[in-house]
Each structure stands twice: as structure tokens, then as C-alpha cells.
């Protein structure tokens, strides 16, 4: 029973990170690392929450959240791609910007309450013993996010668009030669990444907590960036990593409910430490999977 709780919680609290990491994956496949994902998520969380408060419609809220995330990511795209700014430094500034802007505009929403998205049990499927309640009793955004993963895999690895995306991250000269502007591809990839991160943030505020709290993403955007590296830039593995992060958070809630005498602060740390550990394990046996343009960023040459 506890295990089922933790697994359900893994999906429920991992979805926001998962969406953000899928977005970051798209952006990194095109060769742009965006630490501003944290800012996009915060923007999405607040924008989504605000629109849900105003309209009462969580679908509009999710859309608005995505657009806020996109807007914030567009700053990153402009500074990095058009102005040649350092990717890591710009991403951090955007993270800081997101914290400042949402703290400012969010203060009126701190005590607001919404209905938002609530878990919908899928008929028949949710009656499957054990697995049913774990997999098929979630909010609509979570179902969509699960469908997104195979879709992204297909787009990235089986379509022309995917080839263009990956080429932008590996060998932009080839794109040039075939008459496509790599900068444009990268712009679109970063914006798409911001959109997904924004929806991830909105999922957090509209479907998970049903509230806006200042700086509520608490590093989930950074974790999403780390997970993409852990996942070797593969959508399914990023999903797995995100649910692992979610499981660590669910564990913390479960342990508290069961009344074990473990300090909650240790449990708070677990997801972050787990992310570090996952990175270490992957690094041990990593081949040259890193998109070439990203490798340059990590080597300190990242600009443009």
C-alpha cells in the first residue's frame, strides 16, 4: 500500500519536472542549454495560476502558463543566439529574473484558491489491481504529458524536423549547406522548450498544489536540466529520471505521514542528492552522446 502511494506520488509530483525536462531536451538537442528553465517554470506556474483564477478554466491556465514560459525563454534565445551571450550565465540571470518577476506579480495571488485540474480515474483501466490506481488516476495534464514522450521520440528520431533539430546541435554547417538557417531552428527549439517548461510549471500550481507560493518550483528547473544529461538526451529516460525525482518527493510525504522519526530536512535533500547520484552513474559510462554544440558550452566556449 505504501509502495503504491509512493509510485502514484512519483508520477503526480514528477510530472512538472518531466515536462520541463522534455522541453530542455528539445532545446539541448539543438545545442542550447537553458538554465533559465527554472525561470520559465516559475513564470508558467504564476501565469497559469493567474489565468485559472481569472477565468476559472484550467485549460486556458495551462496554455497561458506555456506562453509565459515561452516568453521567458525568448529572452534566453535572443541573448544567446542573437547577441552571442554566454549560455550558462544568461540562463542563471533568467532564473534570477524569473524569481524576481514572479515574486513581484505573484504577491496578489498568494492567498487565492482555485479548483484547477483534479485526478480523473479512467474507467476500466483504473480498476486494474495495483497498477490501475497508480497509472490511471491522474489529472488530464499528466495523461497528456505521458503521451508527449513517445510523440517527442518519434519527432526527434523519425521525422525530418527531428533531423533538422539534431543537426543544429551536432553540425550546423550541414544545415547551412542544405539551405536551412540553424539559428532559426535553435530559436524554435528554445521557444518550444520554454513552452513545455511553462506548462510544467503550470501543472505544479494548477494541478498539484492548487496554490501559488513564492519560488514554488524550488530548483525543479535545475533538476530538469540535470535530468536531460542523465537521460543522455533521450525522452523516455528523461521521463524515468523525472519520476525518480517525483518518487523521492513522494517518499518524503509518505514517511512523514507514517510518523517515522527522520528529520524532514534529510528527506527534502533526497531528490537533489539522487539527481547528483544519477548524474555520477551516467557519467561513468557515457560515450560521446553529448550533442557537439553542447560539448562546447560545457568546455567554456559557449556563445551562440
Amino acid at each position, binding site marked *: 500500500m505504501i509502495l503504491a502511494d509512493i509510485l502514484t506520488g512519483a508520477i503526480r509530483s514528477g510530472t512538472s519536472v518531466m515536462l520541463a525536462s522534455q522541453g530542455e531536451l528539445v532545446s539541448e538537442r539543438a545545442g542550447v542549454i537553458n538554465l533559465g528553465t527554472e525561470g520559465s517554470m516559475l513564470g508558467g506556474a504564476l501565469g497559469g495560476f493567474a489565468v485559472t483564477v481569472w477565468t476559472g478554466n484550467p485549460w486556458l491556465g495551462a496554455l497561458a502558463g506555456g506562453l509565459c514560459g515561452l516568453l521567458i525563454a525568448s529572452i534566453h534565445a535572443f541573448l544567446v543566439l542573437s547577441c552571442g551571450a554566454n549560455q550558462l550565465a544568461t540562463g542563471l*540571470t533568467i532564473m534570477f529574473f524569473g524569481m524576481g518577476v514572479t515574486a513581484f506579480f505573484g504577491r496578489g495571488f498568494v492567498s487565492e484558491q482555485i479548483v484547477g485540474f483534479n485526478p480523473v480515474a479512467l474507467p476500466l483501466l483504473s480498476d486494474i489491481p495495483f497498477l490501475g490506481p497508480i497509472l490511471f488516476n491522474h489529472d488530464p495534464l499528466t495523461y497528456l504529458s505521458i503521451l508527449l514522450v513517445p510523440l517527442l521520440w518519434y519527432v526527434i528520431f523519425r521525422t525530418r524536423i527531428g533531423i533538422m533539430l539534431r543537426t543544429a546541435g551536432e553540425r550546423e554547417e550541414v544545415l547551412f549547406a542544405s539551405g536551412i538557417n540553424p539559428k532559426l531552428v535553435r530559436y524554435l527549439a528554445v521557444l518550444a522548450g520554454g513552452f513545455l517548461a511553462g506548462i510544467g510549471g503550470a501543472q505544479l500550481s494548477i494541478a498539484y498544489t492548487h496554490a501559488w507560493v513564492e519560488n514554488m518550483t524550488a530548483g525543479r528547473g535545475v533538476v530538469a536540466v540535470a535530468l536531460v544529461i542523465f537521460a543522455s538526451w533521450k525522452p523516455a529516460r528523461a521521463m524515468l529520471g523525472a519520476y525518480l525525482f517525483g518518487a523521492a518527493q513522494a517518499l518524503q510525504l509518505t514517511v512523514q505521514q507514517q510518523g517515522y522519526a527522520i528529520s524532514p530536512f534529510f528527506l527534502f535533500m533526497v531528490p537533489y542528492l539522487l539527481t547528483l547520484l544519477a548524474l555520477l552513474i551516467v557519467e561513468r559510462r557515457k560515450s560521446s552522446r553529448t550533442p557537439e554544440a553542447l560539448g562546447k558550452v560545457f568546455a567554456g566556449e559557449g556563445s551562440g
Partner: protein
Amino acid sequence: MKTQTGTIALSAGRWPSFARWKKRGVQTMIFVAPFVVYGIFLLCYGVNPVDLYVSMVKSAFGDLYGFGEVLLKATPFVLTGLAAALPAKAGLVNVGGEGQLAIGALFATWFAVFYLNAMPALLGIPLMLIAGALGGAVWAGLVAVLKVKGRLNETITSVLLNYVATFTVGFFVHGMLKDPDSFNWPFSPEISSSLRLPIVNGTRLHIGFVVALVLAALVWFVLAKTRLGFRIRVLGSNRLAAERAGFNINKMYFWVLISAGMLAGIAGMIEIAGIEGRLRASTGANFGYLGFLAAMMAWNHPLRLIVTAFLLGMISVAGNTLEIGSGLPSSSVNILMALVLFFILGGRRWSR
């Protein structure tokens, strides 16, 4: 960069060339533009930006107390800025100043509360400073080991560890370091008054500022004037050349990160011994990030960093003025800071 402008000036005779003026103009515009954009933002909220900027300058330079407040705010930014600037010279991106400061503050408080309470100031304060540096070094050591042994990118590990550091401090102020007389509030006992840093009369400014200045000068000296500094700069500007020259790169990375952690840890100690007197979970929140931004604004130059830290200190103090004067939350100056940085990041290409 300097030699380049020199040659341009030479080729145009004794008069500064047009190119040089253009560069100055662009640099000035990059500095002014964020204040204009933020001013428009303020106007939308019914605040007169000119009044705000004037009161900002007045509160900083109007009297001794205000000037002291700005220096007080700038002190941790100088130190956490150095913690970012020094590794940057070696080609590393250390964003862990936040966590290194927190753990430095934790170590400093721990030693102050349990071991140094009865000591005279002349012995206790330096020992507490060492404890702070040690704490920062331990935290940076984690990043360094992950970098050198685990080949993990230091940017991501240092940000992740910032969150872990916050929870670590939370654990201690809720547990082993909680003040028994605090009626269950989560903060440490107050450190003994002999461990508090001496204060300049008429202000709240303490000698921690002098410590920060001395350390900035030291870092500058090492980087600019010593062989070690030269090696660090070579490593940062051309890793391949450093490899070919036979430098022990991993060892350099390790010690540069440790030194950075010590600098940020000292910032944590100064916050405790200089201002707060006790450790809270919120001690030094955001100082690490602001220091990183100050370093970026100064293009990682240790002496220019003092100026940019002062500017950020001024903006921080203005946040309080803004909150009192117009009802806007003090967090809204974070937007101004981010704008300043956006323009610097984006304008770098045109200002060179």
C-alpha cells in the same frame, strides 16, 4: 583588449578615434538602458522613477549611515563575487556561492556557539573566520570532487548543492543548533558579544568590509601578478595550451574551487559575526547569486567587482526605500538587477 584599443588610438594619431568614442557610447548606453526600462515599469505602477533614483543616490551618499548601509550590503556581494570570479578566470562556472556561504555561516556559528564563546575577541574572531572558510571549503570541495573525480559539470552540481545546503542549515537550526530559549523559533543561540565584529561609529558598518576589500586585492594580486595567477588565466583562456604546457589541470581546478568556497564561507561568517549574530535558515539568502551577477558585471575582474558589488548594494538598499516609500515590494528591485545583467550580457558583443 587594452592593446587593441591602444593600436586603434595610435593609428588615428593623438586624438581618440571615432571607434573608441563609439565604444564608450555603447558602454554608457548599456549602463543607462536598464534604468530607463525599469523606470517605464515603475511608471506603470504609479511610481516616479526619477524620485526613486534620486532618493537611491541620496540614501547612499546623503549621510554616513546610508553610506554605511550600502557598504554593508556590498560586503557579502564582494566575497561571493570573488567566489565566482576566481573560478571564472580558470574557466569554471561556480554558482555555488549561495550554498558555500550558507555552510560557512553554519560552521562559523557552530564553532562560535560551542567552542569560542568564552574567548577574547582577538583570538575568537579569527578562529571563527577560519571556521567559516572551512565550511565554505567543505561545500566547494563537494563540487570540486564531483568535477575532478566524477567529471561532472560544476555549474549544475553547484546549483543543485545550493538547495542541499539550504536544507542542511534548516536541519541544524531546527535541531542541534536550535536556541533552547527561543520558544521554538528556528534559529541558533546568539553568539557571544566578544565575537561580534567591531563597528564604525554612527553606522552599522563593521570591519568585515575591510576584510572583503583586502581579499579582493589579494585575489587581484595573485591573478595579475604571480606565476600561479598566470597559470590560472592560461587554463581559463586556453585549456589545450594548459594541457600541452603540462599543467596539472585537475589539481588546479580542485584548489581554485576550494579557494572560492573559502571566500564565500568567509562571507557567511561575516554575516553572522557582523550583522545577524545568530544563524537562521534565511541567512544570506540570494547573496550567492547576487555575488555571481556582480562578478559577471565586472567581467570577473576582482577590483572592478568592488564597484559592481557597491552598485548592487545600492540597488538592494533602494529596495527597502521603495518598499517604504511606494508600497512596492522590495523584491521588485530584483527585476532591475536582472535587467542590468540582460543588457550587459546582450551588449557585450557591441561594446568590445
